[in-house]
């Protein structure tokens, strides 16, 4: 099974195994990784599952949809490799992906 490494703002690392198709958001909340709020439950409509994807993985993670783009854009802490973790489904190709969690969710 593919794994994801979540790195909290304070540096704490969590390596989580998941099934193909699980979103990174559901892996984090399902395994009590702090730092993802996910108020809307994965509907791409709250932006409280913001994460920063390690540069090396940006391309494999795909491009944000228009809806995700409009939500991300409202976050003043957005970085060039910011994504909403509920919009990244796990694939075999993403095995080992590294994402940073921001200090705060809005």
């Amino acid at each position, binding site marked *: 099974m593919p794994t994801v490494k979540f790195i909290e703002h304070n540096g704490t690392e969590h390596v989580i195994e998941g099934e193909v198709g699980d979103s990174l958001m559901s892996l984090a909340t399902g395994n009590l990784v702090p730092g993802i*709020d996910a*108020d*809307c*439950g994965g*509907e*791409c*409509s*709250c*932006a409280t599952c913001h994460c920063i994807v390690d540069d090396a993985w940006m391309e494999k993670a795909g491009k944000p949809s228009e*809806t995700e783009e*409009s*939500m991300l*854009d*409202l976050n*003043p*802490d957005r970085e060039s490799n910011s994504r909403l973790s509920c919009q990244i489904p796990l694939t075999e190709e993403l095995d080992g992906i590294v994402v940073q969690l921001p*200090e*705060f*969710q*809005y």
Partner: protein
Amino acid sequence: MSEAVIEKLDLTTADPWSVPLDKINVSDPALFETDTHWGYFERLRKEDPVHYCEESLFGPYWSITKFNDIMQVDKAHHIFSSEDGITLPDRPLDFRTPNFISMDPPKHDVQRKAVTNAVAPLNLAKLEPIIRERAGKILDNLPIGEEFNWVDLVSVELTTQMLATLFDFPFEERRKLTYWSDMATSGELAGGPTPEPVRRAALLECLEVFTGLWNERVNNDPSEDIDLISMMAHNPDTQNMEPMEYLGNLILLIVGGNDTTRNSLSGGVYFLNEFPDEYDKLRANPGLIPKMVPEIIRFQTPLAYMRRTAMEDTVVGGKTIKEGDKVAMWYVSGNRDEEVIDRPNEFIIDRANPRHHLSFGFGIHRCMGNRLAEMQLRIVWEEILSRFETVEVVGEPVRVLSSFVKGYSELPVIVHAKQ
């Protein structure tokens, strides 16, 4: 009384389950004043979840009543516009106060981003000690063992002080903020008691006072900005706003942060009294406060709905909504949708997923102040629990005559000190 009035169907006393569906008008403000809307929404969720009402004070409109349909509409800002207003009454053409809650992208995004920083988590952390100190003072001055109106002495006072802090508004004149907020939302065009000329005069006074503050601050050093007015005055995206647009954004921030938080503060006290086992749970474990706060906000639903206008023909829940139609997303109904929320009519302070509610909306207009509101409520409840054994509700609340702002004008209580 004229005969027309006598003949009119009074929904507040009718049986929600036998009124003909097409006569149901959930936007009737009296339903909220009398707390009799629940049965109508329950019926609509079961029998006609996307409901067309032909005749109302605000003209014809659609009601969306189920959680998932509301989510669908709120997300689809490219189909459902906010530009014609976010409440059902049509706004007077000669007195428009534009602001970003009633704008679509791209303008919405630009303006929202210009003020978001004021409520960014780091700024909130800076505000926390001030809010705690002010909340503590208010609570310390309450009469013990004597009946008083919680809304006035606590809810209004606290949220007004909060707003004064956010704007760095002259502290002694802070009740003006409450007054303007009340005027903004109680207009007769929205079915409220305030005559339109009185409302306009109050809002123009608001503009005048805030223009004064703007002028005092515009030449200050922008790096020191912590208040919202200075931020707007110095941000290139907002510094050239027209006066009516400045007023619009002020009203948005004043109303956004005022009524909503105020009524959640009152609601929480009321709910804990209605569900005394939950109050016991809370006393035994104050660590539940962060989970209780979103549950209070769900249960209260301080804004009963948001309105949109369809920009094209579209289908929701099997019904075709036509271009130009008004659509109300009834958060107050979706928050009680048993298909999404377990035991929705119970106030449960330790739910697994308490933030999964509609009270802040979703999508690009999702409440900008949602973390601020939660923080205020958390602090106040921490301070209440450390001081009082019980805040006891000793009479029925008086509710506001509005189908938009869902709230209380009176909540009689007695506070009992800790042993």
